[in-house]
């Protein structure tokens, strides 16, 4: 706590309160007011997360800014919040992207503006809740509740096939969550009546139970990451989601899954994690290589970036399950970097889509002639997506490969191919869309970025390069928590 203020609570509830206020502005007559309120809410929401960063103690791995109040005393469920190095960064990332999304939807969203903006603010608060919760039921409540705004966002403002996509998204994730719920209740009974995640970390669990719990968690988190073979909802959801939805999906929803592995699966069931690490690594490598190849064949820009996301998230899960400091820290950096890069790429595609109403690569060509500023930004993010040194993506990927090579050369070799495939599909996309002669009349009529779009792009560009050149501030924060987690995971939790 800072000045006695419950900082994490504020980061959760401030956006939610603003969301309700925005919702209260009613129909589209008041759209300008709704936009302004949403902007105020998101910017304030971001500012209140800064104390977390400034007041963060990098020397300890224990939870900071802890808040603990009784909630449902009958089941010993508490309003228990706290962050460590891992979760703190994601709260920042989330609040930052909420600002970006609000600005990105400023003019683009014309119908039901207040509901659109409110949904993002509500979701922002809930995602902060997911990262801040230390009580597993509190976590679960936020985890499930955040599906609802996303469901609405995709379903109302999405593309033609949005209903199918949003239903698939919701039901897929619900399947995983429900199994996780049973696992949480099982753990509650095992610990003798505590839902605290930190208590779950301590309790001894027999091997069979560990494996089953791991599988239940796996369903919940793997669907969100998404890992092969439960990834099929993501391309559908991404393609149909509005730009803002895609950005939040890529930048945060996916990270929530990986965060779940870190916070739940690995520390609660370390023995099962080691036992099944081979499977996890195999699935990750399939995602990296096979999904990378799938991305190569896409004709829809958003689908291409969606598959590229799955492939990059494969790096994250592999980094986690090789159980060394390089891998894990690399995975976390990759998560943050992927948030920036994939978010930026979806924004770029959004810029094109707003003007052309097509995501089809074949409809473009020679955009550089008409939108030179855009082409420059797009170039930067495309390079980052292919893992060019000097951009944020390089740091994480490099560290994961370093970690992998310590474990097994062939893991690293297979993962390394992504640097080739990633470059291939991204640059090929770039070439087809941006370079060449002006393809048709519609491209001829394109206008370059406006001030609002330049602002968003520059912010992201600074972050992508900044993190690539000087990742130390981030890794410093991660360091203590990652080491602690690794020590924890190395200990067997089988009952003696």
């Amino acid at each position, binding site marked *: 706590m800072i000045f006695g203020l419950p900082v994490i609570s504020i980061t959760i509830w401030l956006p939610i309160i603003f969301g309700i206020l925005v919702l209260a502005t*009613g*129909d589209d007559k008041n759209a300008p007011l709704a936009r302004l309120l949403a902007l105020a809410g998101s910017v304030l929401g971001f500012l209140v997360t800064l104390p977390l960063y400034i007041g963060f103690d990098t020397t300890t791995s224990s939870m900071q800014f802890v808040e603990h109040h009784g*909630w*449902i*005393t*009958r*089941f010993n469920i508490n309003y228990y919040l706290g962050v460590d190095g891992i979760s703190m960064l994601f709260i920042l990332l989330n609040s930052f992207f909420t600002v970006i999304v609000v600005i990105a939807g400023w003019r683009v969203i014309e119908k*039901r503006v207040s*509901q659109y903006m409110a949904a993002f603010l509500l979701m922002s608060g809930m995602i902060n809740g997911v990262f801040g919760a230390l009580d597993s*039921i509190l976590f*679960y*409540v936020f985890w*499930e*509740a955040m*599906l*609802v705004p996303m*469901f*609405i966002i995709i*379903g*109302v403002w999405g593309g033609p096939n*949005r*209903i199918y996509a*949003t*239903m698939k998204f*919701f*039901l897929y994730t*619900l*399947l995983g969550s*429900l*199994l996780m*719920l*049973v696992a949480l*209740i*099982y753990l*509650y*009974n095992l610990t003798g009546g505590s839902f605290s995640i930190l208590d779950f970390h301590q309790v001894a669990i027999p091997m069979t139970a560990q494996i089953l719990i791991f599988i239940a968690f796996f369903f919940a988190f793997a669907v969100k990451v998404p890992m092969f073979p439960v990834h099929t909802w993501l391309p559908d959801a991404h393609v149909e989601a509005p730009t803002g939805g895609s950005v939040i999906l890529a930048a945060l929803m996916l990270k929530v899954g990986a965060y779940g592995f870190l916070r739940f699966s690995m520390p609660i069931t370390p023995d099962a994690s080691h036992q099944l690490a081979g499977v996890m690594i195999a699935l990750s490598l399939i995602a990296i290589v096979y999904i990378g190849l799938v991305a190569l064949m896409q004709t829809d820009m958003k689908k291409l970036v969606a598959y590229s996301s799955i492939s990059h998230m494969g790096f994250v899960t592999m980094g986690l399950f090789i159980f060394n400091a390089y891998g894990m820290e690399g995975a976390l950096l990759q998560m943050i970097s992927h948030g920036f890069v994939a978010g930026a790429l979806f924004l770029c595609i959004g810029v094109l889509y707003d003007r052309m109403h097509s995501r089809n690569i074949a409809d473009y060509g020679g955009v550089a002639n008409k939108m030179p500023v855009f082409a420059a930004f797009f170039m930067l993010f495309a390079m980052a997506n292919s893992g060019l040194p000097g951009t944020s993506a390089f740091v994480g990927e490099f560290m994961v490969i370093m970690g992998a090579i310590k474990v097994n050369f062939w893991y690293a070799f297979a993962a390394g191919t992504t640097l080739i495939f990633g470059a291939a599909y991204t640059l090929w996309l770039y070439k087809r869309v941006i370079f060449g002669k002006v393809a048709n009349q519609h491209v001829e009529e394109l206008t370059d970025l406006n001030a609002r779009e330049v602002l968003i792009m520059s912010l992201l560009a600074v972050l992508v390069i900044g993190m690539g050149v000087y990742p130390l501030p981030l890794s410093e924060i991660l360091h203590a928590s990652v080491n602690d987690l690794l020590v924890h995971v190395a200990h067997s939790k089988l009952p003696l």
Partner: protein
Amino acid sequence: MNLLANLIPVSAEIFLLVMVCFILIADLMLTQSSKLFTYLLVQLTLLGCSVITVGTHEHGVTYAFNNMYVDDLMSDVLKMLSYLGMSMVLVYSRQYLMLRGLFTGEFMVLALFALLGMNVMISANHFLTLYLGLELLSLSLYAMVALQRDSAIATEAAMKYFVLGALASGLLLYGMSMLYGATGSLELGVISDAINQGVPNKALLAFGLVFIVSGLAFKLGVVPFHMWVPDVYHGAPTAMTLLIGSVPKLAAFAFTVRILVEGLQGLEHDWSSMLIILAIASMALGNLAAIAQTNLKRMFAYSTITHMGFMLLGLISGGIEGYGSAMFYTVVYMMMSLGAFGMIMLLSRAGFEADTLNDFKGLNQRSPWLAFIMMLLMLSMAGIPPTVGFYAKFSVLNAIVQTGHTWLAIVAVLFSLIGAFYYLRIIKLMYFDAPESHEPITYGSDTGLLISLNGLGVLFLGLMPGTLMSICAVSVQQSLLLP
């Protein structure tokens, strides 16, 4: 025990009966245009009942009339909730019934008789009292379904309801007679003791139990005794569906607990394995069949079947956690179903029933507030936090896992996943589709306020479920004398 001491525990029921008779006669004097007076009188009666129920509450368990009747915390809590539920039913139905010419004294008198029946069921401690309450409730409901005389579908539903209901009552009576033969008593406590001490004729006991469980399953409407539920829900005028589908579930819960737990605790091993089959079958069939429905009332009928199946899981688990969670589930279910059927009536107009899925299309564009309330209700039915439906499911699942039936919990959540689909479909219709009609939605300020409170209540209880959960747990603990 003197007469007065006997009368105190039943004073609320006596007051209710007196008032029903008074209203019945007073209503004859009133013209059709002044039915509002009857309505207000009924609401006042409910208020009076709750005051008496609270006023006569005593700590512990009080028996009356030679142990025929019991007054304990569980009965008082359930009665209070029944008054509340009944009062909400009347508020929701007033305008709907007025537009259809059904807002008559008969409706209100029958509703109060049904309430009296429920009260008796909730407080019964003897097979005869239980049966008396059940029949009073059922007969009132049969008549109410048939109240719309000129509607073929309503008459058919009433017929079906009556025939199958009578069959179920027969099964129950038959079972009761066998238990009487085996144990020599109709009083729940005595039966329980007799079973615990060992009954010579085990086969008779087992047969009796099978009949009793079948009869209960009929009344609860769980698979494979569910056939009447969709037809009755669909055929009855929505106000009656609202009544049938909400408040009596509380009485049915009490009825089931009194018989199975208070009376037949010694046979728990037998009945719980029967209930497991009923519960799984209900969740499976209810959820799958609900997907195929286009009529909302039918869909909610199948969803009731599912919810009752889920509630049974709590009974199977036993103990404070189990029975407490089953009670909590029932209470929460009543709240959600009141809201859902209330919404159907709110959207209906004179000569138009908003009871198909298509009628909810684009509700968000016609009335964002109502769409939001309906979304909360549907999320709650699907068991998605932060609504109270989640905690209902959560507490039942917790009870099952505690007894070691983790597999049953997994089965239950997988069926809930299927269930989530058709609740989400309603949200989809309201938010994603374009409206089919642009008729303005008109509703009274009382119904509007109530539906808002109902929806927000589901949300509020979802944020703060602790108190209601504790009330349920404490009342089953005190009433069933659990450790």
